[in-house]
């Protein structure tokens, strides 16, 4: 049932990626590619950290689906930046949610028990850092930028050119919006996520290759 629901979504993701590569994107063209890479890495990292990849096939499959999910999110964000309309934003949000669901489905196939909760918890804690870590930033002002960077929402904010920390909700529930912080550039985010993703990939590959090699030698 779940697969039958998600399969069309994944096809849409692939179509979206193809469209992103073929169609000229006016304003956000400069950020669509790095956004794709960054979001793919972002979505992939928890999977690499939490999932138990026992075979190279599973690893490849994970990478492919995560890339598609990231591409889908990037395309959605790009569209929202371009048009800025409520409908576009709603579609963008829906696509991102569906991309997340696709990742969830992937984890369901490969992950050991409990991985979903760990994945969700890590993502939730990182996203809500501006709320729970703001008191620390108020004690040590230079931490403000670090806290802002910790949240994946900041990446989306940068890509959409939206100072979300000063929207009504965040301003009313976090002191961070009243502190001096600067969002890093989209490029810096991409580099950070790419480096983090590469490091985690290396660890995952080493874990996967190690036991297999030992078996083959026997």
């Amino acid at each position: 049932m779940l697969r039958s629901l998600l399969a069309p979504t994944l096809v849409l993701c692939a179509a979206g990626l193809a469209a992103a590569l073929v169609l000229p994107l006016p304003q956000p063209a400069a950020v669509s590619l790095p956004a794709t890479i960054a979001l793919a890495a972002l979505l992939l990292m928890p999977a690499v950290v939490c999932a138990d990849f026992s075979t190279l096939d599973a690893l490849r499959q994970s990478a492919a689906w995560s890339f598609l999910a990231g591409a889908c999110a990037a395309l959605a964000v790009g569209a929202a930046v371009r048009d800025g309309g409520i409908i576009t934003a709603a579609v963008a949000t829906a696509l991102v949610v569906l991309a997340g669901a696709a990742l969830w489905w992937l984890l369901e196939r490969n992950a050991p028990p409990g991985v979903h909760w760990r994945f969700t918890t890590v993502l939730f804690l990182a996203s809500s850092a501006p709320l729970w870590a703001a008191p620390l930033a108020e004690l040590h002002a230079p931490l403000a930028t670090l806290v802002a960077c910790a949240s994946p929402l900041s990446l989306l904010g940068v890509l959409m050119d939206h100072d979300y920390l000063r929207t009504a909700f965040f301003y009313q529930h976090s002191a961070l919006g009243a502190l001096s912080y600067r969002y890093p550039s989209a490029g810096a985010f991409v580099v950070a996520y790419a480096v983090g993703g590469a490091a985690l990939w290396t660890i995952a590959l080493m874990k996967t290759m190690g036991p297999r090699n030992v078996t083959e030698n026997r």
Partner: protein
Amino acid sequence: MMRYLARLTIALAPVLAVVMAWASPAIAQSMDEGLQSRAKRAVDAGLHYLRGEQAENGSWSDSVGITALATRAYLQSHRGYNESDGAFITRPIAFLLSHVNDDGSISETNQNRNYNTAVAINALKATGNPEYDEIIANARQFLTGLQIDQGEGYEEEHAYYGGIGYGGDERPDLSNQYIALEALRDTDLDPDDPVWEKALQFVTRTQNRSESNDQSWAGNDGGFTYMPGFSPHGGTGSYGSMTHAGLLSLLFAGVDRDDPRVQAAHGWITQNYTLEENPGAKHKQGLFYYYNAFAKSMYAFGEATVTDGEGVKHNWREDLAAMLLSRQEQEGSWVNEESPRWWEGNRHLVTAWSVIALNYVVRE
């Protein structure tokens, strides 16, 4: 004939003295001369500190907003600095001009575009140089474009209507509003421009005065809060910095001093008169923002003294000068050691704010 005139002059002298004292701000708003001299020396020390901190590109903290405020502090000081005084004035102006964007905003970042553009207008206008008129006009258009109205899908009934926010979202607040209105006032925007009337609607909706504020949360102490229905210090309570910002906003928008909204705001200020803290705020938060807004609003209101809730009369100039002198560091700077909120951990910003406040104190 001459003798008659001399006698008449002598006879009318007391009357003339009273009339002059009433009519001349220089006399009516006097302060202790010794304290005034010390305040001027404090301004000099603050400006000396800023000059030592200026970056190679002419900026302070690599920020358009802080650079504009520091430049304004120089240009409006008792020294009467202007662009002919040298690179320490021309370089920050050049830095501001290098951040003029196609949409008219003057900002190095998409954050704080309203604040940055507004204070840049103040600084460029303070030069008195007509070469910047076109840039100022474009910046003014950018600011008025930020105002929330039907163009953004908000009708008059909405609490946000007429407000101006940071410029990166659609959430307005009184702080951004007052800074923007100060800049628009500096640009001599037509008093009949609808921007003012719309702005007044938002300002009125941040005042705790239920007779004029149609919001259900509105109290009745006459003070102002941060935005409709929210204060960062809890609930919807009035506090000092926003009440001075609200009073200034009303005056900038052309509201008469006798208007009940102005009188209510002034009433809150007198009832809560203190410079020890930002009254109504937590933990000395926003203290120097308060001093800055206090100086500007008291100057604009035009009374030399304030009678507090206990009937004690205060010379606000002397009180503010004494407080800022006591808080100035040896090197000439100021900083809020107790709270970094609203950037008050930044010495460049807080020093610029303090010097501007003292400029109003010693101005005649």
